């Protein structure tokens, strides 16, 4: 475990992807939950709860893609062709839901269409991200600096399960976000949905965790070999702790606790994947060091990232602070 530039960058890219998952996760989740809230007033409030921040959340996805090309170009150049169809599907989903934030307010007649675009696009994007995750965990064959598998390799029972898992998980984030940001009947229904999603998420995490070690020998050794097996005990215990806080937060009608606990679940699941992956960037073909760009590229971008990422986090936090508290149904510039 050398603390060199590729390792630092792997940690930074991992952070960017995690930031994306937890931030865009809840606003995608709000879109996924749209069909369960048929009232126009509820939908207006739901959309306004994420409208000021969704664009910043999605920027982490651009950083993940652009950053990967910059610092691990070989990983970017092999993962993207390998996951061609899910990536295109994700992009199309994101187009529909992204424009829906603006278009929905611009028309009475076609409003129902943009409601569907928002819900369908969010769900498609989430499912495609889950497919991509599953396909990456399964492993991507590479020969001679290029993807060497088939065009349908990404579609397996395992990747479909991870796809569904991400949709349910994002729905949990969305529901707990709504508990935090809304009032009255809307928040009540968000609570009951969050409860169902919580059990769904835990079930999905369990299935994926039990399945993963049997996909790759490396994962098996990591989770059942000494000393790394320590994690196999610690991570599930922490997951159960988060679940307890989540259920208790819903039951005691707390505002922020369910959301924070749901974020905790995602962070733990993500750490679990990270433990499985290390030292691979693209299992089982490329390590972090195989995929890394030359040090001149890594150093040049690292200087900026170390200065800019804290600043970005600061003004992003400020933007969230400006829009803190419950959504006022009367607000919005539309």
């Amino acid at each position: 475990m050398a603390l060199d530039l590729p390792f630092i960058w792997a940690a930074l890219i991992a952070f960017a992807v995690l930031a994306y998952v937890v931030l865009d996760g809840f606003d995608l989740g709000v879109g996924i939950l749209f069909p369960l809230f048929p009232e126009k007033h509820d939908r207006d409030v739901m959309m306004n709860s994420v409208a000021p921040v969704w664009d910043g959340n999605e920027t982490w996805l651009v950083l993940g893609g652009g950053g990967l090309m910059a610092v691990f170009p070989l990983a970017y150049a092999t993962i993207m062709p390998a996951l061609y169809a899910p990536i295109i599907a994700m992009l199309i989903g994101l187009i529909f839901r992204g424009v829906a934030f603006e278009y929905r307010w611009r028309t009475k007649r076609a409003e129902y269409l943009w409601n569907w675009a928002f819900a369908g696009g969010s769900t498609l994007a989430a499912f495609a991200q889950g497919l991509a995750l599953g396909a990456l965990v399964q492993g991507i064959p590479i020969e001679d600096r290029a993807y060497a598998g088939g065009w349908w390799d990404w579609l397996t029972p395992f990747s479909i399960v991870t796809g569904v898992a991400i949709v349910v998980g994002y729905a949990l984030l969305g529901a707990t976000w709504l508990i935090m940001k809304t009032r009255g009947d809307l928040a009540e229904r968000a609570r009951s949905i969050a409860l169902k999603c919580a059990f769904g998420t835990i079930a999905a995490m369990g299935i994926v965790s039990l399945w993963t070690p049997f996909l790759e020998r490396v994962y098996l050794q990591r989770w059942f070999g000494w000393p790394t097996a320590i994690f196999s005990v610690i991570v599930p215990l922490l997951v159960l702790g988060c679940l307890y806080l989540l259920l208790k937060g819903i039951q005691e009608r707390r505002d922020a606790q369910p959301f924070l606990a749901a974020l905790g679940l995602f962070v733990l699941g993500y750490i679990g994947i990270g433990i499985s992956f290390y030292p691979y960037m693209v299992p089982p073909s490329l390590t972090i060091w195989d995929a890394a760009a030359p040090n001149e590229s890594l150093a040049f971008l690292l200087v900026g990232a170390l200065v800019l990422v804290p600043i970005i986090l600061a003004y992003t936090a400020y933007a969230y602070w400006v829009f803190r508290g419950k959504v006022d149904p009367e607000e919005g510039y539309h």
Partner: protein
Amino acid sequence: MFEAFDATLLARIQFAFTVSFHIIFPAFSIGLASYLAVLEALWLWKKDAVYLELFNFWKTIFAVAFGMGVVSGIVMSYQFGTNWSVFSDKAGPIIGPLMGYEVLTAFFLEAGFLGIMLFGLNRVGPRLHFLATVMVAIGTLISATWILSANSWMQTPAGFATNEAGQFIPVDWWAIIFNPSFPYRLVHMVLAAYLTTALVVGACGAWHLLHNTAPRRARTMFSMAMWMAAIVAPIQIFAGDQHGLNTLEHQPAKVMAMEGHYHSHPDGAPLVLFGIPNSAEKRIDYAIEVPKLGSLILKHDLDAPLAGLDTIPDELHPPVAVVFWSFRVMVGMGLAMLGIGLWSLWCRYRGTLDGDIWLHRAAVLMGPAGFVAVLAGWITTEVGRQPYTVYGHLLTANSIAPIEAPAIGASLVAFIVVYFLVFGAGTFYILRLMARLPRDTMPELDEGPLRTAGVTPGPATAKPHGGHHGS
């Protein structure tokens, strides 16, 4: 389906299609973000409600255009990997960090402050709100800087070496960022964005003047837009000429294609005004040309020799017809913009700026001219770069991902359907917003900015806006 097609051709069509759609939105939002910052500054300074009304009017249009720019931009950031993976592997160490800096310095800034700009006036007060507007405007300009640096490096690569894996290795970042064509391209594109926005704002103002709706607001925006066109159009023509001379120095084949010079002219080259490029016969059919003028423009000397495409192997020629025509479209649009700028100055001098119906009609007609010019200009420079992705070092044919044609064809069809549907709807909504009256804002703010010391705590207490959604 698609088996008959060549994967490289399909990938090129997909890139051209998605990037053409994408560039339309930044070209508009770069200029519009600066215009919004100016409007809000004028409101804070002069306390005149007309500026706040115009700000709110254009802010909504900006939000729609910006949203379209964001979603079409995400497609671009992943397309390099899906369709051009070999290019990404080889050029990623140089192009990647430039785009990474674009995200870190521009995209987050724009996105972080956009929410406050759109929704936050009542929550943060006018001054912080103005700061947010300025941040969004600065973000758009920073974004243009990085992405044009990356594109310019592909056109005029500098400051690099290569390694045994065939990757471009950065040697001197200063030389990479400030590569030979970057300053020219940046100035040319930012001016283009400002002109594009000025023409749209001018067309909108002219339309409302013709229909006599909201005369004061219409007059104000029309006058501002015409000042912009009158000042920037001549500067842009000069900047474009300088950019052309820089291209002649670094990418002579591109200029030969732009000028239609299949053959060398040892004693003074003509300027071909129009004609039909015939690459099979290596000549311009039906050419209308001015003798010696080509050498005068490019070499500032009537009799200077000018090399033609005959000095370059056939397989390295860019597609002449496309470059030749797109260049003429761009120049034609530029001259038309200069014309309307001068016309507006003449009317201003005569005192008929608000009353000249023909000027207003011409301004409405010129509304899309900026977009046409931007697209034609990008087609000129990008098609003129062929057959290379990294000029002189990496062929387009060797940049493509190992993806089979049917997959690229299927995704191309999907993008075409989605883009026309989604961005067609967006364009319709923007046009409808423009046709609407610039709406009255909250009456309590019409007296000028409220004096608040920064953040107003707690939830907003604003009354809901008057006005209604859509139709």
